[in-house]
């Protein structure tokens, strides 16, 4: 694929590099993982010696003829400037330039330069490897360690178009395509109306959007991408479900209850993103900084959490978020945000009774020079335990995620992530989990990165026959391309 087709004669040298270093190894010990990781890091470092190419220019960077790193700490994580750009509806912070920048004049016509709106992201693990105690069929192979390595590239392809149609009117459409499953889904699609009343007083979003985008730690922009869980077998409606492998979604954002179902009886994964920390919900929300840069508010109404999972949707869900920022000088910025999300009849238990599932969250982030540290903590509460599961159900769950990224060279990013999930839900199914993840990501160009990552299960020693406990560790290596 020649991306140059989209941007003829433009100063871009971003030709996708699909060559992937594939290493298939079966790991039986953590030390082997570390050795392999360091070998891989060495391989990555050799790429360092290649002369640096010109900066990559994905959609918004193309539009403003600038550098990815104006807005990102490590794509797709946003820095303070990028966050304000997002808040301002894809207009420069402090500027209402949606009607002027990126427009081409042909006589009387003021046309949009489409190449400056379209971009895509391709991300996938070339290699995934993990070990777990085999559970299936139940009892037959209990305690036998199975190691598995899979080639799963590419995993996800996202096509997005975003920008402004006029002054203070922005839009974003994001088509997600899980490769291998076929079909595409609108992950996000919304219109923004910005600077209503006065500059930065109120910005309105309407459509299908990510409610958490303005929080200190935005779910969809996390550095270490999710790895889905693996169910033990087919799970009939409103019946318990067991897992071979837990998901590695950041625990603060994941669903945390075992034994919840959507209205069709499908089991809700305890590792899926949901409620406020969801990638896509349909509704309307408003945010703004009416008192200056230090304070951001956000309120919204959406159809309901887990909409994509099948919300019972008897009432709308509402949420509010406040965020405090410090961003002045010394290459330093910090923010802290808190939110309350009130879920209305957004799940069912096996007796098919509705639950109101609420979430309270705190997140914080600080960046100093090349170091970026962020954390989120959330508490999920089911206020009234349905009578049918009384005594069998833990109605409180918490999740904690801490992450840190740092550049060790101009092109090499090292990330650490810690996740702790204290699950709630049906006591018989409930399993908690703690993971620590390490990732090295090397940007061959500003928009093409290869990565290697390993996750370690910190609760491994407990043994037992539940997925969270018996997942030994997981190793991933792959590529991340953004155009």
């Amino acid at each position, binding site marked *: 694929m020649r991306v140059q087709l989209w941007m003829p004669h433009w100063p871009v040298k971003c030709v996708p590099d699909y060559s992937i270093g594939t290493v298939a190894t079966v790991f039986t010990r953590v030390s082997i993982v570390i050795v392999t990781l360091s070998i891989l890091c060495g391989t990555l470092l050799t790429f360092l010696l290649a002369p640096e190419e010109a900066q990559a220019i994905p959609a918004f960077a193309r539009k403003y003829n600038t550098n990815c790193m104006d807005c990102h700490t490590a794509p797709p994580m946003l820095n303070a400037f990028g966050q304000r750009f997002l808040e301002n509806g894809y207009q420069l912070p402090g500027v209402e330039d949606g009607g002027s920048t990126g427009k081409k004049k042909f006589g009387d016509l003021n046309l949009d330069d489409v190449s400056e709106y379209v971009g895509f992201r391709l991300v996938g693990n070339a290699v995934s490897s993990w070990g777990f105690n085999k559970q299936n069929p139940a009892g037959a192979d209990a305690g036998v360690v199975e190691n598995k390595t899979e080639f799963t590239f590419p995993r996800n392809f996202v096509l997005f178009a975003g920008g402004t149609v006029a002054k203070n009117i922005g839009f974003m459409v994001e088509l997600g395509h899980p490769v291998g499953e076929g079909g595409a889904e609108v992950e996000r699609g919304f219109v923004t109306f910005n600077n209503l009343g006065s500059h930065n007083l109120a910005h309105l979003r309407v459509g299908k959007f990510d409610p958490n985008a303005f929080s200190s730690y935005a779910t969809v922009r996390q550095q270490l991408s999710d790895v889905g869980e693996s169910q033990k077998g087919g799970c009939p409606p409103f019946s318990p479900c067991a897992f071979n492998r837990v998901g590695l979604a950041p625990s603060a954002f994941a669903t945390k209850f075992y034994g919840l179902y959507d209205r069709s009886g499908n089991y809700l994964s305890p590792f899926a993103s949901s409620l406020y920390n969801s990638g896509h919900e349909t509704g309307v929300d408003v945010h703004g900084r009416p008192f200056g840069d230090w304070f951001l508010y956000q309120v919204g109404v959406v159809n309901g959490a887990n909409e994509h999972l099948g919300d019972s949707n008897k009432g709308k869900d509402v949420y509010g978020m406040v965020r405090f920022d410090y961003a002045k000088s010394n290459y330093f910025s910090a923010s802290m945000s808190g939110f309350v999300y009130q879920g209305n009849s957004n799940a069912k238990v096996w007796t098919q009774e509705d639950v109101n599932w609420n979430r309270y969250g705190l997140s914080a982030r600080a960046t100093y020079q090349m170091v970026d540290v962020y954390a989120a903590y959330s508490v999920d509460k089911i206020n009234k335990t349905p009578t049918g599961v009384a005594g069998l159900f833990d109605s*409180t769950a*918490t999740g*904690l995620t801490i992450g*840190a990224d740092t550049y060790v060279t101009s092109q090499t990013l090292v990330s650490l992530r*810690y996740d702790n999930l204290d699950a709630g839900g049906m006591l018989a199914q409930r399993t908690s989990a703690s993971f620590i993840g390490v990732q090295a990501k090397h940007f061959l160009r500003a928009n093409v990165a290869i990565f290697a990552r390993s996750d370690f299960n910190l609760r491994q020693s407990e043994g037992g026959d539940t997925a969270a406990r018996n997942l030994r560790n997981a190793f991933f290596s792959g590529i991340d391309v953004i155009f």
Partner: protein
Amino acid sequence: MAGCPAMLGQALGRLLSIAVPIAIIGLACWSPLLAAPQSSTEPDETGRKAPVSQQLHGLAPGPAAKFRRPREVSPSVVEPQAEFPGLAVSQPGNETPPTRSAFSESTGPVIVGRILYRGPVPAPVQIQVNRDPDVCGLTMSTTALSVDAATQGLGNAVVHVELAVGEASARIVAENPAVVRNKECRFHPHIAVAQMGAEVQIFNDDPLMHNTNIIVDNSTALNVAMVAGGNPIKKRLKKAGLHLVKCNVHKFMQAYRLVFDDPYFSQTTETGQFSIAGVSPGLHRISVWHETLGMLEKDVQVPTRGTVVVDLEYK
């Protein structure tokens, strides 16, 4: 409400599991990553207002910090003839050291002395040139330390007497130009002093292109191309401070100019001698700069007349 204590208990329980990752993250953040080149590349925020010698502290080359030491208070005033008869500037006819002080007066106090270095003197380093061998040669010998074997006097050090507190500078525009001559891929002279406002004259004697990039306080004071056979450059020195002179196409070319906004400075002779006249009476701080040895400082009580002898030694 009943859930609250339970939540609190859970949160406390989490503390242990949180402590581990925080420690790991802490380690990651404190490791050598933070010690990176930033600290040396950031501009000195007080630099613009501080006296020149303080700026020199911040800008002195690598080893400087190692040699910085607490100030000693000055020796007593001595009669000029007693120990250093040859150094008394006020005595006519004797061998006045050929210092480059821009200011001299027959009356008033004079500060004289020597800068000494008794440590080991490394042999000259031969560096591979790899650029324009016809003009630059194949190798180049660099001598960082110029020490007189007999007297241990240190050459090419620069001595500056700071103004007394509250004293206004005697703003004299020095007529002596600061010359930078590009010759055989070296800057001549290697170290020189000048007063602010003096003219800097840049010549290129080589039959190839150089550039003369003068950097003060992390910003460009002057960066001029010197094409072969081109015109010499004449500009006024507008900023005081340590001027790093570089040629970007011959990275081995490097020199320093020390520019002061008062006339109380002197560059040491080959035997390490200096002399500074015209300083007002009172307590002054003397600072010494050397390219590789760094800074020395000493407080000196200057009398209304006579000569103060100040010897400083790099140890």
